[in-house]
């Protein structure tokens, strides 16, 4: 009886672990995809629609998903004070407050910080070019991440199941 109970617990723990791993991997990918979308919206708003940055960030804070919404809201609030002229550094400082909410690796996080430079550009041609560069870098990471996610999901399922079965056999 105890052994059966123990085996069931092990199975549940294994399943829970697998789900947790998969959720983290998918959240990582979701955040990368969302960032590409918001980067495009920022760039398009600046270069295509002549929107003011304060308005762009306000709009994004209402429409964006977590964890971006809070970040954009804090950016909008800070910009409206008109106290800092170094907007790219302001971006990096505020981003660091939200770093723990993003499930990104270091190189992916670097792109997010680099995106602040887009905001300090004055020329629409440069905004277009810089936006494209950032977008291309994002696309590379997204493809890489999606491929890795698929492989990691498989590996983590196999490993977890194998470990679970081994533990059950040991118990039994």
């Amino acid at each position, binding site marked *: 009886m105890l052994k059966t109970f123990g085996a069931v617990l092990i199975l549940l723990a294994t399943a829970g672990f697998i789900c947790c791993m998969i959720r983290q991997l998918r959240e990582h990918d979701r955040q990368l995809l969302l960032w590409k979308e918001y980067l495009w919206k920022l760039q398009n708003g600046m270069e295509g629609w002549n929107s003011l940055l304060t308005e762009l960030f306000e709009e994004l804070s209402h429409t964006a998903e977590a964890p971006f919404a809070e970040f954009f809201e804090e950016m909008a609030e800070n910009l409206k004070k008109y106290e800092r*002229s170094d907007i790219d550094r302001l971006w990096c400082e505020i981003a660091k407050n939200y770093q723990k909410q993003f499930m990104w690796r270091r190189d992916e996080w670097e792109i997010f910080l680099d995106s602040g430079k887009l905001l300090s550009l004055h020329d629409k041609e440069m905004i277009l070019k810089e936006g494209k560069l950032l977008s291309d870098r994002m696309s590379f990471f997204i493809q890489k991440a999606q491929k890795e996610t698929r492989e990691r999901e498989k590996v983590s399922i196999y490993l977890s199941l194998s470990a679970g079965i081994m533990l059950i056999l040991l118990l039994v």
Partner: protein
Amino acid sequence: MSEQILSVFPIHMREKLKKTLETTRVEELRVRVNRPFVLRTQAQDYFWDIQSGQCITSPGQAYFITEKDISDMLTFLSRYSIYAYEEELKSGYLTLEGGHRVGVAGHVLMENGHVGKMSRITFLNIRIAQEYKGCAEQIYPYLLKHDRMYHTLLLSAAGIGKTTYLRDLIRLLATGDGQHAPLRVGVVDERSEIAAGYMGIPQHDVGIHTDVMDGCSKPCGMLMLLRSMAPQVIAVDELGGEADFLAVEQVLNCGCSILGTIHAADINEMMQKTRLKGWLEQEIFERFIVLEYGEKNCRKISVYDEKLEQLC
């Protein structure tokens, strides 16, 4: 008003400048790189002491503007969005919220004989907007006939207040009063001086029934308003070029009244203008308002009819 102006200055200047603007009636703020900061009042120009926040007459203690100050100011006055003001910068100005105009100067990149870009802005002139509501009340009744406005030209030399009077006339026409019904007025505000549009929203009071074509050339603006906004009056500032007058002809042919301004110190100077001669002979314009300086530097307004007989 002062918050809108203060927010464009660097942080280290704001507190003391706030006290200065509260105590001194400043008309313009002149910012020049590596030169003293200058505040222009009606009486004279002053330098500014950043330590005390006071206006001074000698440049010895004056605050000198740095390159970083100008760079910060451009960031703030464009709301972190200089890219959005490319076209306005080519025209040499920006309009702030509240209708204040900022003239810019610096290094220009020319392209095929036209201004391509302002690549380095190193001089700013912040002109504080002043509205003088009611200044045209005495002449307003002379412009109306039953339910329409006479075709009217407002003349004056530079700097007397043509645009200010034009703005007030637009407001009065579009709002009406107890005796006169309001009219639908379309305004072509090529340089954002009449309505002082900020992001398309007029910052000055131009009346209830007014539509504004902001930043648009006069010929295009007049035709667009005629086609789409059904105006009873079209108001334009500084008629001058051939295309302006061709567009005015179309307005006249469509049964719309025209309210325009031209540079001319008096009626005689107006009659020398070649493009107007034909219209003057045909008595197309029915009212002429002449603005000039009279005794003791006060403004003097005279109204003439189509036969150039003075009405007031």
